[in-house]
């Protein structure tokens, strides 16, 4: 969805009216301020010993048109970071700029370009129909709903909601409600959209559809999307770049490929019924055995196998009389990267959830 009415009216992103060059990207589009610039943001909840630092001196820049994932366990500070960016939570220190507008000073200007789907919130009116919601929230975001009626139709088409446009939201399935919530967020033409746990509570199929649609919207409409999730499947499928948060701090910030590449351990997982304790301990003396899974059927072990080590491992296995039933290279995922960087896994949030 293109720029909001407010910025189209007077911002640097206004197109000249001298010549129509539909495919030309004006230099301002690429050199303007980033979609989101967070600087030294800190937010503490509570006082004294009970105080929890939800966001701890976080700096982050999100370029226009990119899709960035915030990955971290519950309580890592994802939602607080998003709420600070929206102005719903006022930070203790630091600043947030949305397309160059400070969220604190020029809030109203910033609000025109940003919207969010927050975790667990309905976000829309269940007693209104899908289209009525889109029109209502477009107006609230500062856009004349009649001027974006065709856009809304396209959006509903794209999200497979066209048939349900005139159905009250309360009569829709959970997956559809989630999509309406997303549509209502996109209805006002916000260019920067925060999606907090967008696939939470959806069944596998609905979650997959939503992920595919998010990716498509980002590419086709040039939206800047920040997706927060503790579900790495969503992040891996949708995002170009991942920012990992743990205890309010950024522990990693890179492209998905780079993060996975850095974690690539050149390890192989060998499975065989002949892998008994004795054989494994012999192999341990010569190779770096990363992991042993005796409960697997057949038992398996993971061995570091960089360079020529793979051949040596295979020779050693043959010599030990091990008939290999399965060999596969170990693919690291974001979960492992997170574990490596923080020493804790994504499922383990800290006790309280300060959000």
């Amino acid at each position, binding site marked *: 969805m293109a*720029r909001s*009415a407010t910025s*189209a009216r007077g911002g640097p992103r206004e197109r000249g009216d001298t010549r129509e060059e539909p495919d030309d990207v004006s230099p301002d589009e690429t050199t303007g301020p980033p979609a989101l610039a967070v600087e030294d943001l800190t937010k503490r909840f509570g006082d004294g010993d009970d105080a929890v630092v939800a966001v701890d001196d976080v700096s982050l820049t999100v370029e226009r048109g990119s899709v960035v994932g915030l990955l971290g366990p519950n309580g890592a500070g994802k939602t607080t970071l998003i709420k600070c960016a929206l102005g719903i939570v006022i930070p203790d220190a630091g600043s947030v700029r949305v397309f160059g507008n400070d969220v604190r000073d020029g809030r109203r200007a910033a609000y025109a370009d940003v919207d969010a789907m927050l975790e667990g919130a309905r976000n829309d009116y269940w*007693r209104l129909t899908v289209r009525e919601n889109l029109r209502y929230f477009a107006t609230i975001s500062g856009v004349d709903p009649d001027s974006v009626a065709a856009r809304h*139709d396209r959006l509903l088409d794209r999200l497979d909601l*066209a048939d349900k446009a005139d159905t009250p939201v309360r009569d829709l399935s959970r997956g559809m409600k989630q999509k309406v919530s997303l549509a209502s967020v996109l209805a006002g033409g916000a260019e920067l959209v925060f999606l907090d746990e967008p696939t939470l509570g959806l069944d596998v199929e609905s979650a997959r559809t939503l992920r595919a649609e998010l990716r498509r919207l980002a590419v086709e409409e040039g939206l800047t999307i920040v997706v927060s999730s503790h579900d790495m499947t969503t992040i891996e499928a949708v995002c170009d770049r991942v920012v990992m948060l743990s205890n309010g701090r950024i522990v990693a910030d890179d492209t998905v490929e780079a993060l996975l590449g850095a974690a690539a351990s050149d390890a192989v997982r060998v499975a065989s019924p002949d892998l008994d304790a004795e054989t494994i301990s012999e192999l341990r003396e010569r190779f770096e055995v990363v992991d042993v899974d005796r409960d697997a059927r057949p038992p398996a072990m993971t061995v570091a196998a960089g360079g020529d080590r793979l051949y040596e491992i295979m020779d050693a296995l043959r010599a030990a009389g091990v008939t290999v039933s399965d060999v596969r290279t170990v693919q690291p995922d974001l979960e492992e990267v997170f574990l490596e960087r923080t020493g804790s896994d994504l499922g383990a949030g800290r006790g309280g959830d300060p959000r």
Partner: protein
Amino acid sequence: MSADATSPGTSGTAAESSAPTDTARAEDEPRPATYYHLARAVLYREFLIFVRYPANAIGGIVVSLFFFAALFLGGQLLAGQALTDSIEGIVVGYFLWTLSVGAYSSVSNDIGSEVQWGTLERHITTPFGFAPVALLKGVAKVVRTFLTSAVILAVMLLATGTRLSLAPVTVVAVAGLSIVSVLGLGFAAGGVTVLYKRIGNWLNLLQFGFVALISAPVFDLPWTRFLPLAHGSAMLQRAMVDGIRLWEFPVADLALLVAVAVGYLLGGYLVFQFATGRARRLGVLGDY
């Protein structure tokens, strides 16, 4: 709705050929919404919910009438002739009470629901700012309350055989301004609910306090005129029982009516502003 005119089929055809697409794209460049669009959207939403879910309104009317019946019949048993003599006053007072309760609870409950639905944040993070949205919602609630209370008034008049002066401009102006002060209390209560969820339910009990305000002894204790409802209630009695028209009231009375309305509305809004500001610092806005 004009959006219905552009069916998905039409936009599909346009997308198939490339030349018209550019024009279509240029045409659907979003235009900024004005306060007119905002007013239309907010009022239209209230209207849709009112007509689509009439059970809520009808339920409110039935409950109010039941209370009045209990009051009227019970009062007749206890007070006999004395009650019949003052029945006009009771009908007018009860009418104003249903108006006040309607305005107060619709605003404070509405804020509570919006917090739960996660829609309150979206109204706070609007480029229009929350004030005009809240004000328009308040207007919509007042209009809606007038409609239901008018039904209650009509039934009360028919059932008791009472005759009152019903000059529409006078009644709407005086009663309307009287309950604007209550609207302010509703905003304040809504703000407190945003901060302290549980207290919200207790604040609903405040509506019974309105009875005391409506029957406040403004002649014996003139300072009570500065409380919400009290002065307006006295003026509404004179208008509806004695048939005094709006322009027949002393200017000072009218000025005080307006001042009390604006004062409490502003005060209530400031409390709401303060409460949401604090909720944003504490990070509890939209937590439920």
